[in-house]
C-alpha cells in the first residue's frame, strides 16, 4: 500500500480537526476564567499541527504527482492483515463478553483463539495454558492486588 496516499488523507483530516479547534468555541464547557484561557494551549497545538500536517501532506502529494518511486517506509506491507482484523475482533468480543460471562470463563476462549490464530495446534498444552493462566491471574489479582476481575453475572 502506498503510504503517501494515506499521508495526504490523514493530514487533510488533521488539518480540518485543527481548524475546528481553532474556530469552534463550543469545545469547552463550564469552569472559571484563567489568565491563560482554557483554549489557549489547544489552539497553539492545533496551529502547529496544521503546519506539520501540511508539510507532510505537501511532501507526499508532490511525490505522488511526480510519480516518484516508493522508498522503504513509504511502502506499507499489508500481508497478514486479515489476522489483525481477527485479533481486533477477538479483543472487541472479549470486552463485550467479560462483563456478562466473567474473566475466568471468557479468557480461556480468547487465549485459545489467539493461540490458534498464531498457528498453535498442540491442543493439550494450549488448553492447559488457557485454563491455568486466567486462574492464576484471577486469584493473583484478588489475593495480592485486591483487584476483583469481573465474574459471571448472567
Amino acid at each position, binding site marked *: 500500500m502506498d503510504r503517501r496516499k494515506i499521508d495526504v488523507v490523514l493530514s487533510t483530516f488533521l488539518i480540518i480537526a485543527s481548524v475546528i479547534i481553532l474556530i469552534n468555541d463550543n469545545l469547552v464547557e463550564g469552569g472559571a476564567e*484563567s489568565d491563560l484561557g482554557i483554549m489557549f*494551549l489547544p489552539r497553539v497545538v492545533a496551529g502547529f499541527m496544521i503546519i506539520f500536517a501540511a508539510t507532510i501532506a505537501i511532501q507526499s502529494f508532490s511525490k505522488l504527482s511526480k510519480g516518484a518511486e516508493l522508498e522503504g517506509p513509504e511502502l506499507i506491507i499489508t500481508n497478514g492483515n486479515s489476522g489483525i482484523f481477527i485479533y481486533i475482533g477477538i479483543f472487541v468480543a472479549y470486552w463485550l463478553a467479560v462483563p456478562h460471562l466473567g474473566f475466568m470463563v471468557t479468557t480461556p476462549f480468547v487465549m485459545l483463539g489467539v493461540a490458534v490464530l498464531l498457528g498453535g495446534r498442540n491442543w493439550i498444552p494450549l488448553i492447559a495454558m488457557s485454563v491455568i493462566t486466567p486462574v492464576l491471574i484471577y486469584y493473583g489479582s484478588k489475593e495480592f492486588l485486591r483487584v476483583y476481575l469481573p465474574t459471571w453475572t448472567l
Partner: protein
Amino acid sequence: MFDNILSGFSAILAVGPILGIIAGVFIGIIFGAIPGISCIMAIAIILPMTFYVDPIIGITMLLAVYKAGIYGGSISAILINTPGAAASFLTAQDGHALTKAGKAGKALDISLFSSVSGEMLATLVLILVAAPISAISLQAGPIEKVFLLLFAFTVIGSMAGESIPRGLLSCCLGMLFAMVGMDSITGSSRFTFGITELMGGFTFTPMLIGILVMPEVINVIRRRKVPHHELAITHSPNPADNRISFKEFKQVFRTILKSSGIGTFVGALPGLGSSTAAFIAYGEAKRTSKKPDEYGKGSVEGIAAAESANNAVCGSSMIPMLTLSIPGDDVAALLMGAFLIHGLTPGPMIFFEHTETIYAIFAGFLITDLFLLVIARAGFKFFVKIASLRRYYIFPCVTAFAFTGAFTAGQNMNDILVLIVFTVMGYGMRMVGLNPAVFIIGFILTPFLEQNLDQAFAIVGTEYHLFFASPFSWVFIVLSAFFVFSSMRMKRKASKVPAPVQEKSA
C-alpha cells in the same frame, strides 16, 4: 549525600524490595530474550501490578525489568541474529558471528559483563550528578520551566521521529489527547463532547499499553506465517571458547569504560536513546582498535563496546527525567508515568520531598546489577529455553495480561475500550511513520506545561517581554534551535545513505 545513600541501602536491603528486584530481573531477561517482545512491553505489563506495593518495591522492580530487559535483548541477538531493538543490531553482528563459530558462551559472557559494567558506571554517575543538577534546576521558576519543556518537546519531537514533521506531529497529537477532560486549574471540560466518561481524561495505563505494547502483538500476528527460530547454544569443544577469561576481560576493559562513558553522556541527552549510544561507541571502539578488521565478524571488543554503551543509557536516561522532568526516551516516559502513579513527581523537588525513596531507588539500581550478573550467569540455559517458547504460547498470555493491566488501573470496563482504541491508533501511527513514544512523552508533559504556562502568564501579566528577560529562556531557545538544525542535518545525511529494510522475524 553519603548519609542518604546509606539510608537508601538500608531501605532497599529488605525482603520486599529484594524479592521485587529478583522478580524484575527474571521477568526482564525473559521478556528481553523473547524475540518480538521488548522491555517496554514488559514494563507496561508489569506496571499495573506494582500499583499496590510500596513505591520502593514497585519502582525498583520496574527498573530491574528495564535493565534486565535491555541485557536480555542481546541473548536473541547473539543466538539467532534477531536484535529485539535497534540498539542490539551491532551485538547481533558480532555475537552471531561468534555463535556460528561455536563461541556462543563467550559472546553471551562478554555481553553480560559489559552490560553490567556499563550500567554500574552510569548508575554511579546518576547518583553523583542528579542531586546537584536538581539543586540548580530548583532555581528555575515557571517561565524557565515553560522554555525547558518547550525545549524538551522540540528535541524529542525532532530527534525521535522518522522525519522532523512526523516527530513533532506525534508530539502535538500526544499533547492534544492530554488536554481531553476536566482542567485541574479552571474546572472546565475540554473535548469531552458531553461524554461524562471523558471528564477524567484518558486513563494512562490502558492508553500506554495500547500505544506501546499491543501494536507489537499485532505486528507478530501480521507476521504469523514467518517461521519460528530455534535458539540454541552451540558449543566448541575447547572450554576457553565458551567463557570469557579475566585476561580477555582486562583487554576490553578500556573499551568498556570508554563506551560506558559515551553511553552515559548520550543517555543524559533527551531524545537520542540507546541505539545512538551503541553506534557511536562501536564506531569509536573500531576507530581506536588494534584489530578493526574483526569488527562485524565476531569481535569480542565490538560486543563489549555496543553492549556497555547500550546499557549505560539505562542509568543516565534517568538524569533528565529525575532532575528536569524530561523523559529522554520511550522507556523513561513509561517510567515517569510509573513514578507519577506511585505519587512521586519526577523533577528537582523529588530529591527533597522523597529523599529516602529516591536514594533507595538508586541503591536498588546498583543492587539490580549484582542480581542481574548472578541470575543471568546462573540461568543461561533456562533463559535460552524460555526464549525459545513458541509465540502461540507467549502472545495469548500477553493478551490476557494486557487486558488485566488495563482493567486493574481503574477497575472499569471503559478502560478496555480505551485499550482497544489506542491499540488501533498505535498500530496506525507506526504504519504512517508517527512515533508512539513521542506521543506518550507529549501526553505526559502537557499538564506540566499548561500548569507552568498558566503561572508564567499570571507572573508577567501583560508585559510579555518578561518571558525573555531570563537568560535561561534564551539558553533554551538557542538549544532548541540548535537541536532542530542538527537533527535536520543528521536526517539529511542519513537520507543519502540507503537504509537496509528488513522484516523482523518473530
